[in-house]
């Protein structure tokens, strides 16, 4: 009798993985989402919030992290394409390659903006698949969280209920916070971005995008570009926002000419952020835009 019970216990232990999921997130926003959904997961975040996810280079440390990962959480839609395909191919870990259960792309879970358009690099570093920067829209991120919860539930059925419940909780928190953000941003005059990296946030709260510092994606502005932008926007109100990896020169020059505030804001929360950290990050963006 006792031996039989021990057998069942052993079977249960074997059936439910005792080890936490080993997750690699490309950016701190994705890391925050992973922490919100699976607080006990073993998480590695590959890039800091002050680095351009599009211009990163594959490094041996990334390959090492990917080697043993159960799940790779990327922003996707070609944002990380300069380094992630090389790093994940070198990691010799078939489980996390695109097409497998261990590969999760946020952009594949939600509808994208800027889809289509001419595939012509005279227009800069364009990505006709759509704008990949979905991580600044809290509503899309709530959808991504639920999809991530579902994915983690498949990978680790033993904790499925907890992943789903955590994802639901995160989505509910976003829903609760939405009216407050909407109220704060109601009637915001608009923002000038350096790159079209916050369009999802602006679109979510109906804040007008007044222009971009770079004339086309991936190309820094010339003096003439800035003068044209200043001419177009003179007399209006707004705020200029750029990421820390963008040169502050152009934004500052435009800010001086227009008399607008210039806010350097990272696209991602701090590396150690969890779900709350992500919401605080949205708070920062909302108050920067509202402060125009």
């Amino acid at each position, binding site marked *: 009798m006792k031996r039989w019970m021990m057998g069942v216990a052993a079977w249960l232990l074997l059936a439910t993985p005792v080890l936490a999921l080993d997750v690699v997130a490309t950016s701190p926003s994705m890391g925050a989402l992973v922490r919100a959904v699976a607080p006990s997961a073993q998480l590695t975040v590959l890039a*800091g919030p002050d680095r351009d996810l599009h211009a990163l*280079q594959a490094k041996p440390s990334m390959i090492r992290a990917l080697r043993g990962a159960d799940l790779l959480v990327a922003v996707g839609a070609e944002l990380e394409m300069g380094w992630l395909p090389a790093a994940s191919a070198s990691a010799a870990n078939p489980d996390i390659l695109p097409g497998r259960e261990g590969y999760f792309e946020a952009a594949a879970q939600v509808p994208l903006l800027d889809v289509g358009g001419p595939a012509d690099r005279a227009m800069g570093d364009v990505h006709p698949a759509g704008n990949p920067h979905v991580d600044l829209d809290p509503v899309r991120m709530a959808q991504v969280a639920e999809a991530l919860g579902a994915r983690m539930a498949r990978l680790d059925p033993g904790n499925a209920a907890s992943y789903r419940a955590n994802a639901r909780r995160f989505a509910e928190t976003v829903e609760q916070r939405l009216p407050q953000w909407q109220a704060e941003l109601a009637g915001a005059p608009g923002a000038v971005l350096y790159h079209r990296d916050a369009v999802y946030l602006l679109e979510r709260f109906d804040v007008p995008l007044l222009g971009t510092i770079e004339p086309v994606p991936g*190309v820094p502005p010339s003096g003439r570009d800035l003068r044209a932008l200043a001419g177009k926007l003179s007399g209006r109100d707004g705020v200029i926002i750029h990421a820390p990896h963008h040169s502050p020169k152009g934004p500052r020059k435009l800010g001086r000419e227009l008399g607008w505030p210039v806010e350097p804001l990272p696209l991602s929360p701090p590396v150690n952020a969890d779900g709350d950290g992500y919401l605080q990050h949205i708070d920062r963006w909302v108050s920067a835009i509202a402060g125009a």
Partner: protein
Amino acid sequence: MNQPLVRGALLGALLTPAAAVTAGDADIDALRAELDAMRSQYEGRIRALESRLSDAEQAAEVARQAAGADALSLPMTAPRVLRSQGQATGQVPAGSRSAGLFDAVTSGTAFNPQISVILDGNYYQDDTEDGNGAALVGEAFQAGGGYGHDHDHGADGHAHADGGHAHAVAEPGFNLRSAELYFSATVDPYFDAASYITVSGDGDVTLEEAYFQTRSLPYGLRVKGGKFLSDFGYINNQHPHQWDFVDQNLPYLNLLGFHGIQDTGVQLTWLPELPVYTLLGAEALQGDQEVFGATLGETEQTELNLGDTDSGPRLFTAFAKVAPELGRNHALQIGVSYAHATQHQAMETHTHMVETHADEHAHEEDHAHEDEHAHEEEHAHEDGHADEHMHVHTDGITEELHETGLAGDADLWGIDLVYKYDAPGAYGQGDFTFQSEYLRSSKDLTIRSSAHPERIGSNRTYTTDGLYAQATYGFLPKWKAGLRYDILGLTNKVSGGRSESFGSSDRWTANVTWNLSEFSQLRAQYAYNDILVGEDEHGEEREQFSAFYLQFLMSLGSHGAHEF
């Protein structure tokens, strides 16, 4: 009968329903969770539908505006990314595997491979007399000679005839080094494959690489097969457009040739799951090399009594790379590599100037090249060596060309170190890289044929090493400066039956690279070269010259992802 078994079965049958009853609470929880999941699923779907609706409205608006503003400005539109309902919400019934759910959103290649073309051209000038500086840096003097093919030694500096192979040696003026065509794709769930084809400015087509690589082997193993650049060292597996300098460093260029170890064979790598990045690998390669492990043509093999080219594989490599964890913004990798060529053949030539006047007296000799001297005898060989050429000059001086055939094997050691810092600045500002490698080549050969029969069977070990160290720094957004020092022949000697040590060649190179975008680069490069061209008992023959490059690199097509 089998009493315990029957009893066990009965017990099991009785206990199963009991277990189900006790698990009732858990079931209710599970049901509740499932209901929650369903609710969230529907909410998610509604949200997704709402946002799709708004997207559609927006897209229609954009299209209307675009059509109104400039109907001609939409030359090509990538297919809109279609997502199934389940994908949009991320909720898929457990157990089903809808295709595409785990995929990446891409611009879509619809089964076509990723294609890119890289154009690499330059303007070159140097201040050598013949304008052959770019060829000279690849012919720096090394004990035992460099190129194994019938290399046109010295007679005419311009003729770069190593086996008729097209080389991208810059000549003064404009050069189109290559148009490099790169195709890559995932073949099926088991293989990736790629091919690189270069077309030189003269229209010569070279298959640089064509290989497959496994993608689903367990235990961190990967196998590569085909023709590929070896992972020996660090810079060896980089194509010229990936170099930080226009030209290859002296040790690689002279000890391995322009293409490095580029050969046909198989590679096995193992990336064990360790807290520190560690990659171990080994390769078996055919051994069709220009310099290291080179074999001569059939005619020469017969003439010089070297024997046939052995059947492959004749070249084996092993390498290990380790990278300590230095945080997100720093990367350091240290590697050790070894290569062994089971067969290496070389031919050495030296010229004797012999006066052949009727009133013969002590003749004067002049060695145009290294080695095998001490001549008392008049080189009148009755044994009828096929490798002897006579040129009778009008002034009665006979020029004799003696060829010595050597055969054996060769070893190559390499140590590499790479450090990269990723700075927070815009467009690479503040980024810093340091890269250094040391190579040591040692050829253990035996004389198989000589104009001096007593030397046959004598051993010659030729050792030449080299080092390069280079650094780049992003001094402005999109602007990068580079500095390189490279030297060949810190050790440059022959030992065995004859011992002699030779001098070294070195070079300082500085350049500035302007990355206008991710897809285009312009580069200006200056180098001061001090190249040892030859050495004999009369002393060293050196060429000291400056060389200047202006280079453009244009990348057409898909975004390439570069490895570390």
